[in-house]
């Protein structure tokens, strides 16, 4: 017995002592040691983790055939069979780096991405937009504080890198928005129709964008609507200008939601207190309603969103061609917008995005010459003959767009699809001596394909092409798009983009001639971006070549040309100053173009050489209040008077000049008293803002009389704009938004 026990003890002890020592070195493809690789003798407790030099060692008492596995989240798994027999083993390995969405570069040339996709490249989100002083929660106004955009105050739209407002297009969930702004009033910029809170993601691309988007020569604003709301809620808002109310219902299983909002804007009271330069004989009134539903499918979501707007206004200004008459302009607008989208994951790494949209916009515009007692006057000679008119116009757009995406190995993917638009634009124009009835119809179709090619985590390429055909001009085009990104260091990368972009002539050009071709722009962009926590720095240089721009004189043709080049800087920093978030943008732009009735290639009147913005935000926890300021600066823009002279049958520059520099400082503040009252049923936000606090004189350009003898500056309708409002919500604790601003 004793003997036996002894033998057993010896056996066990031997068993314990008889170990195999395993050592090794682990490196990557480039021969660099990899730390943190977990080495495991499979199905045993034995193993180790590689150190900073890539070395590891451990011992095991196991015997016989086993497998050693090496794992690390950034590398492909690696396994080696081994035989253990007390002989020391050396197992070295070279691991292959995995494609990693978090580590891999993305192409950033040309675009600013906003929203909470897991990347740190986020630039602006919806709260940022709402709290950008001077923006008054208008997406476009906030985007104007980013590099590339001009400070144009007398016309709506984003004027990007020497492009007109029409060269920037907005897309919601993939489909084009035909009338993103309220119908323009001469020399007054109107707001966008959509609230920033509708969107979870915003990409502001100032060039070189994807083949999935077309018909925008300069820029694309790509908006992605929110999915399911967080919970059911009701909202209300009241201010001297606007009253709003809304409901949002989320089903118990969180698979279905619906909502509706209504707002009414009336400026009577405001215009009585803050005097406006124009004489408003019909005070601006806006009725807006919207409704939505969202359905979660198995692996996807269906979203529907609709808005209806009605607005009405009339204003009178002195007529530039006389001392006594006035121009009376009035508009009644109806707009209905519908967007239905379906995003769905399919089998085997396929995904699809289906988008459908229908919108109709109806304008009823009357322009009248009135005498000093506001009575209509009619004339049968120039220049007034064309100043008495009535225009009824309608713009309908029906679209369908389907995109398929297939994930390939690693992060690579292909995307392809097509879209079809049917545009219907009837209009009736009546003036004293003529009558134009027009009905433009266009069938536009496009096919596109694009692929993301990840060569390594450090190098990515995006190759795409787009084919388009428009029936109204009976022309097709093929637009290639190429971009690349290369990681140069931790959080730093260089991107480049090249692309050709086409846009159909505008409706008001096609009315005169359909014998026109696409206008064309070619973009070359190079960008460096460094992105660390709470700080983004980027610098971008671009060259854009315009061709085939539409000339309106002597005939409608595509002989226009132009170019734009420049350098832009952007810095956003939430880190350096405690509790202060700020960003700085600077754009240098050198551009000339010959289009419309320009007599030669000239600096266009919407482009400033230097533009800069500083946006600062601070939330003071103690006061439960936030303070925001924006300062925008732009050097003067050129202005011209093109005068037609009969003998030569051409336009010449009768007068030109440059406006004074543009300066504007906006200020806004929000007070959130119910912050932190966890059980508060009502959540309150008080908001106040002033645009152009310092009352700096802003001259956007000049209007000239018919004979060129009288010249009048284009000014804002009032020096400053004030807004105060109180917003309430029940159900959703919006305080979190404010808390988060501060954390």
């Amino acid at each position, binding site marked *: 017995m004793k003997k036996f026990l002894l033998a057993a003890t010896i056996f066990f002890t031997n068993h314990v002592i008889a170990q195999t020592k395993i050592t090794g070195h682990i490196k990557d493809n480039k021969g660099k040691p990899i730390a943190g690789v977990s080495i495991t003798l499979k199905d045993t407790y034995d193993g180790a983790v590689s150190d900073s030099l890539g070395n590891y060692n451990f011992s095991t008492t196991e015997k016989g055939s086993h497998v050693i596995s090496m794992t690390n*989240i950034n590398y492909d798994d690696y396994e080696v069979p081994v035989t253990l027999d007390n002989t020391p083993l050396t197992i070295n390995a070279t691991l292959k780096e995995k494609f990693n969405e*978090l580590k891999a570069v993305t192409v950033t040339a040309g675009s600013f991405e906003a929203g909470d996709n*897991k990347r740190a490249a986020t630039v602006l989100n919806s709260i940022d937009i709402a709290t950008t002083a001077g923006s008054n929660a208008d997406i476009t106004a906030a985007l104007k504080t980013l590099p590339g955009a001009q400070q144009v105050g007398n016309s709506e739209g984003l004027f990007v890198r020497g492009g007109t407002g029409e060269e920037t297009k907005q897309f919601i969930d993939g489909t084009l928005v035909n009338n993103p702004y309220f119908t323009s009033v001469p020399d007054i910029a109107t707001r966008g129709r959509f609230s920033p809170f509708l969107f979870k993601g915003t990409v502001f691309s100032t060039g070189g964008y994807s083949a999935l988007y077309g018909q925008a020569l300069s820029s694309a604003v790509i908006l992605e609507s929110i999915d399911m709301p967080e919970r059911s809620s009701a909202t209300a808002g009241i201010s001297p200008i606007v009253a709003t109310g809304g409901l949002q219902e989320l089903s118990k299983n969180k698979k279905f939601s619906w909502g509706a909002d209504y707002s009414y804007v009336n400026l009577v009271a405001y215009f009585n207190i803050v005097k406006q330069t124009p004489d408003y004989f019909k005070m601006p009134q806006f009725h807006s309603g919207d409704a939505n539903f969202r359905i979660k499918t198995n692996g996807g979501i269906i979203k529907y969103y609709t808005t209806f707007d009605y607005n009405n206004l009339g204003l009178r200004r002195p007529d530039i061609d006389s001392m006594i008459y006035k121009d009376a302009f009035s508009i009644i607008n109806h707009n209905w917008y519908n967007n239905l989208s379906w995003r769905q994951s399919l089998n085997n790494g396929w995904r699809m995005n289906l988008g459908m949209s229908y919108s109709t916009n109806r304008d009823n515009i009357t322009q009248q010459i009135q005498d000093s007692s506001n009575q209509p006057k009619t004339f049968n000679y120039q220049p007034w003959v064309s100043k008495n008119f009535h225009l009824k116009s309608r713009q309908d757009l029906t679209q369908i767009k389907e995109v398929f995406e297939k994930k390939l190995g690693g992060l690579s993917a292909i995307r392809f699809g097509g879209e079809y638009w049917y545009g219907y634009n009837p209009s009736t124009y009546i003036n004293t001596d003529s009558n134009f009835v027009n009905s433009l119809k266009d069938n536009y179709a496009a096919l596109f394909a694009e692929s993301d090619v990840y060569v390594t985590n450090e190098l990515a390429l995006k190759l795409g092409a787009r084919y388009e055909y428009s029936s109204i001009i009976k022309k097709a085009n093929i637009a290639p798009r190429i971009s690349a990104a290369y990681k140069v260091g931790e959080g730093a990368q260089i991107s480049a983009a090249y692309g050709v972009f086409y846009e159909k002539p505008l409706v008001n050009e096609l009315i005169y001639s359909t014998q026109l071709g696409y206008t064309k722009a070619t973009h070359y962009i190079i960008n460096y971006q460094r992105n660390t926590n709470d700080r983004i720095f980027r610098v971008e240089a671009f060259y854009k070549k315009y061709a085939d721009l539409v000339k309106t004189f002597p005939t409608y043709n595509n002989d226009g040309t132009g170019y734009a080049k420049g350098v832009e800087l952007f810095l956003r920093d939430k880190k350096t100053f405690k509790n202060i978030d700020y960003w700085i943008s600077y754009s240098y732009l050198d551009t000339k173009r010959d289009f419309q009735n320009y007599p030669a290639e000239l600096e266009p009147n919407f482009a400033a050489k230097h533009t800069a913005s500083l946006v600062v935000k601070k939330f003071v926890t103690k006061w439960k209040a936030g303070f925001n300021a924006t300062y925008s600066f732009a050097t003067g823009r050129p202005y011209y008077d093109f005068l037609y002279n009969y003998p030569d049958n051409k336009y010449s520059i009768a007068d030109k000049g440059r406006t004074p520099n543009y300066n504007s400082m906006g200020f806004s503040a929000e007070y959130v008293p119910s*912050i*932190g009252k966890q059980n508060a049923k009502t959540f309150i936000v008080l908001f106040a803002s002033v645009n152009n606090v310092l009352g700096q004189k802003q001259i956007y350009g000049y209007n000239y009389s018919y004979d060129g003898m009288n010249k009048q500056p284009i000014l804002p309708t009032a020096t400053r704009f004030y807004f105060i409002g109180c917003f309430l919500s029940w159900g959703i604790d919006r305080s979190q938004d404010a808390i988060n601003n501060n954390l």
Partner: protein
Amino acid sequence: MKKLLFIAAIVSSVAAYSQSDKYMNAMKQSLSLFDSAKNAADLENAAASFQRIGDAEKTQWLPYYWEGLVLATEGWKYYPDPKGVTEIKVSDLSGTMTALAGRINAALDKADAIATDDSAKSEILTIRNMAATQQMLVDPQSRYMTFGAQANEDLQKAMQLNPNNPRAYYLQGMGIFGTPEQFGGGKEKAKPIFQKAVDLGSAEQQKPLYPHWGLDMSKAMLAACQ
């Protein structure tokens, strides 16, 4: 023959004992690795060690639970401690935290698939709460609605499954303690919650290898609330 049977019985019982003893010892060794960890590399070692035990055993939830906790402990090192010192600084916090949370949740998924009782699931959820909180802290402003809500949901579920889990109360207290008074946080509000964590922690029966952490920390936080 009798003798032989007796010996055989001893040998087999020794072997049987040694198997569970081996697990016990390996776990204890890993726990001491965790206890003595001074930096991220030490924590990675401890986490790998727990993972190996879990992978070999296949029927134990505790190794994966501890792996999750070790990795979550590493996660806190990317954020400033109460003295404002950040132990590990990275330029891509967002990517780092997403990757780490992915590993924590992968370990916890395995633990959760094995664990059967509510109190074990409650412990697992407290670690999920940490992973979600750490992801939220990357950019609280835009992530509160997603990761903040997730963290809160994890904690609520943890308390539901085991109302006597002191660690759930400790974590809840930490969240409230870190929120400014104006936003509904602060010492006053955190105090009763830490008190509850201390009471529950003091009454807790310690089972070998089972989570028992948090009592000292709750006491320290309670003192800080005075």
